[in-house]
């Protein structure tokens, strides 16, 4: 910690950093990047950092065209996008910055569920369930004979991709007859007013709506785990926690202000991630990311 | 209103018995009528009585208030911003500016033909049938009869009989105005107000309309605004001369034209053209 602190102080005194840093990409990562940019203002007021929310896909498109220096991503870069970067001669480094825990939730009035196994979740969400698994009673004996109403993020989101991969084993493999929304607050609204509702979305939304929702523990084979800051961070909440990323453009990484910003990012993100509702990686992970970035820039 | 009626009717009957030719009944009466447009006073203390089954002409220079006064008889001024009226207008002994008066009913009784032709953007037939249709009459043969009759009355039938479905807007100005008159006649009002109805008509149609007025007089009461002295002289029983918002003189048409009492009337009449 002390070392980097020194660097930033030095650069603040010796010469004033200037320039632009354009960031775009996932709206999931946005709150973190926004917060970092906000803090960065204090140490480098002359650097104009801007952050967009075009989505991971839109972000990578711009990134591949060399229009942005950093891309926020809620999923790893895909082959098509890699090819696009290569075609344009864009090199990059992928840095993990935090975990996003996916919480499975039900209505507070739901008194029959306290946990679900991954198999049960799969039973509910897999493609074959469409039009078949329609009642709670079909999931586990003792559950009421009532219709089950499902809620989840839109199929175009990284969250959905991750959930289907983790639960059903294949990205995009899920039933289609669930209520989807890009806005997790809408899902909160949906589940909190529907006794027979069940859904999943970012843990942060549960934290802010504890009184309206009931958290469901997930049994990934090694016992029931309730997602918390701790269980996500130490990796025991599996398989429903995913990493989120930033990608740094190699040409931009030749610029001092960008290097400074990324270093600052990695330094500050453990604290910031929690503040905006995500979960910090273990300290060792961060050290790895810092190292990865250092080798990336020294290669140049 | 019911009271006035019950008092009146026996009196009328009495009069009928006493006289062979009863004096004509007063149908329209204006008492101390002042009209304002905002601050501008367009009519000043007008008093007039108009008898049943007569033709009354309003004459006077442009802007003297003829149209304004005429429009007081069917409350067409209601829709003009800033219009206000004092005094009373009675039709059939009913105060028409009372709050409870149904304006629509009034206007069915008191038809109006305007200065500028204003046919509806509908077919010729629908224009003439309009007044009947809005009264809820649906009987096709009845409607057709009335339409044909009205169009004949205004000497338009021959020109349009083959194209009753054509839009009225395709007619020439003169034809349009005659259509508007036909439209008014179709609902058989008691009173017909005409604001320079023939100013856009050719002489032949004008003559027909004037002839028609003689016919109509038997059943209807007609009040007409005209700039045409000859027309006033030919068709009207009584003439009212307005000047700058005043009713200068009102009397038998013959007397007004041959022997006016006021100098102003004299001046206007003798300066006549037309």
């Amino acid at each position, binding site marked *: 910690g002390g070392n980097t602190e020194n660097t930033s102080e030095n650069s603040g005194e010796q010469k004033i950093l200037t320039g632009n840093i354009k960031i775009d990409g996932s709206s999931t990562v946005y709150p973190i990047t926004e917060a970092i940019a906000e803090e960065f203002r204090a140490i480098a007021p002359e650097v104009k950092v801007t952050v967009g929310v075009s989505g991971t896909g*839109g972000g*990578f498109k711009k990134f591949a065209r060399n229009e942005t220096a950093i891309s926020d*991503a809620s999923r790893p870069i895909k082959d098509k996008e890699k090819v696009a970067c290569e075609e344009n001669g864009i090199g990059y480094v992928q840095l993990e910055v935090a975990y996003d825990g996916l919480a499975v939730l039900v209505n507070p009035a739901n008194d029959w569920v306290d946990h679900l196994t991954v198999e049960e979740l799969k039973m509910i969400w897999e493609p074959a369930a469409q039009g078949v698994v329609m009642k709670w009673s079909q999931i586990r004996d003792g559950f009421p004979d009532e219709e089950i109403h499902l809620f989840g993020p839109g199929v175009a989101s990284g969250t959905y991709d991750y959930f289907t991969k983790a639960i059903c084993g294949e990205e995009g493999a899920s039933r289609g007859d669930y209520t*989807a929304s890009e806005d997790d607050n809408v899902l909160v609204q949906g589940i909190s007013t*529907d006794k027979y509702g069940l859904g999943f979305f970012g843990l942060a939304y549960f934290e802010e709506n504890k009184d309206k929702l009931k958290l469901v523990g997930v049994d990934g084979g090694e016992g029931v785990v309730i997602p918390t800051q701790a269980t996500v961070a130490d990796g025991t909440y599996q398989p429903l926690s995913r990493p989120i990323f930033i990608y740094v453009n190699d040409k931009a990484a030749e610029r001092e202000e960008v290097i400074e910003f990324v270093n600052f990012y990695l330094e500050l993100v453990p604290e910031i991630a929690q503040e905006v509702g995500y979960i910090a990686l273990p300290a060792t992970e961060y050290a790895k990311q810092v190292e990865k970035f250092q080798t990336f820039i020294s290669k140049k | 209103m019911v009271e006035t009626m019950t008092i009146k009717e026996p009196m009328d009957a009495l009069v009928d018995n006493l006289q062979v030719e009863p004096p004509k009944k007063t149908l329209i009466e204006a008492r101390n009528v002042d009209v304002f447009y905002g601050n501008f006073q367009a009519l000043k203390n007008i008093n007039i009585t108009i008898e049943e089954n007569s033709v009354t002409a309003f004459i006077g220079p442009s802007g003297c208030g003829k149209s304004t006064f005429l429009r007081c008889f069917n409350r067409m001024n209601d829709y003009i911003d800033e219009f206000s009226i004092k005094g009373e207008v009675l039709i059939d002994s009913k105060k028409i500016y009372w709050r409870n008066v149904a*304006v629509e009913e009034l206007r069915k009784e008191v038809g109006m033909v305007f200065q500028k032709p204003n046919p509806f*953007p509908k077919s010729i037939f629908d224009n003439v049938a309009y007044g009947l249709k809005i009264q809820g009459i649906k009987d096709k043969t009845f409607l057709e009869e009335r339409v044909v009759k009205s169009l004949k009355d205004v000497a338009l039938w021959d020109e349009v009989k083959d194209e009753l479905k054509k*839009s009225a807007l395709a007619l020439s100005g003169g034809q349009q105005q005659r259509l508007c008159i036909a439209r008014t006649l179709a609902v058989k009002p008691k009173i017909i107000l005409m604001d320079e109805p023939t100013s856009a008509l050719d002489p032949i149609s004008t003559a027909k309309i004037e002839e028609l007025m003689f016919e109509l007089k038997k059943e209807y009461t007609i009040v007409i605004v005209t700039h045409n002295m000859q027309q006033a002289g030919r068709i009207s029983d009584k003439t009212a001369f307005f000047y700058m918002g005043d009713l200068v003189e009102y009397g038998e048409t013959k007397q007004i034209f041959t022997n006016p009492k006021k100098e102003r009337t004299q001046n206007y009449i003798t300066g006549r053209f037309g």
Partner: protein
Amino acid sequence: MKNGVQNDSFFKMKFSEKIIVTLLKFAASITILTTIGIIMVLLFETINFFKEVSFWDFITDKEWTPLFAQKHFGILPLVTGTLLTTFIAIAVALPVGLTIAIYLNMYAPKGFRKIFKPLLEVLAAVPTVVYGFFALTVVTPFLQSIYPDLAGFNALSAGIVMGIMIIPFVSSLSEDALYAVPKTLKEAAFGMGSTRFQTSFKVMVPAASSGIMVSIILAISRAIGETMIVAIAAGQQPRFGFDPTVPIETITAYIVQVSMGDVPHGSLEYRTIFAAGITLFVFTFVLNSVSFWIKKRYQEKYD
């Protein structure tokens, strides 16, 4: 001398007039360029899309699941969703908007019109995100209290709220059209003893029909193109059929969902939005052509 001056200004005028007409022509041609641009942008990716997906499937398959592992590319569910919400919106906006227009023009006191017309126009200015949440958190629960089987996300409340949003399109533009009807016509109708109601519907509305039709067409177009309300309140389940009580998805909602989502650009999944977009384009084009044709037929009858 004087003649010379006049000639001079005459030539100047002619010249500037030509420039003006050219400029106006250019302004008008921007709409054509826009259309070409839109078609080009959509067509390019659409062609690529149809290299991988059969056109027949696209227009006949009743399932739309391009982002799922089990992919179906039938556009029909999105089309019916769009039709349904639009129809509901118009069913709300047309009677209410036209009534308001007539009320303001024929019945309301003068001052009333002046105040309330702009106030109603505010309805068109409220950000659609706000409407979306209004539909979800106010209208849906209200409707559920009447009809408990209504799903939490449904076409009905999204459509109704969309209808409310486009009321000013109908009411303001129609009122302008009514206002422009010559006073003499109104007078003629009143002079015949028509009530205000009769005057409105038998004379004023026909006379203003062109403007009113246009206002309705604009309103419909706005409803078809609306995104946020349906995205928030109607759910995102492509579903073939016309049941207003269940979640549906419209073409617009789908396009915005994918284009702002995490799908890689240039992939087949991403290209679906161009195919969907061009469907919407064709769809509105047919709709507009039909209404234009009706409008023209109607106008020819009367002028």
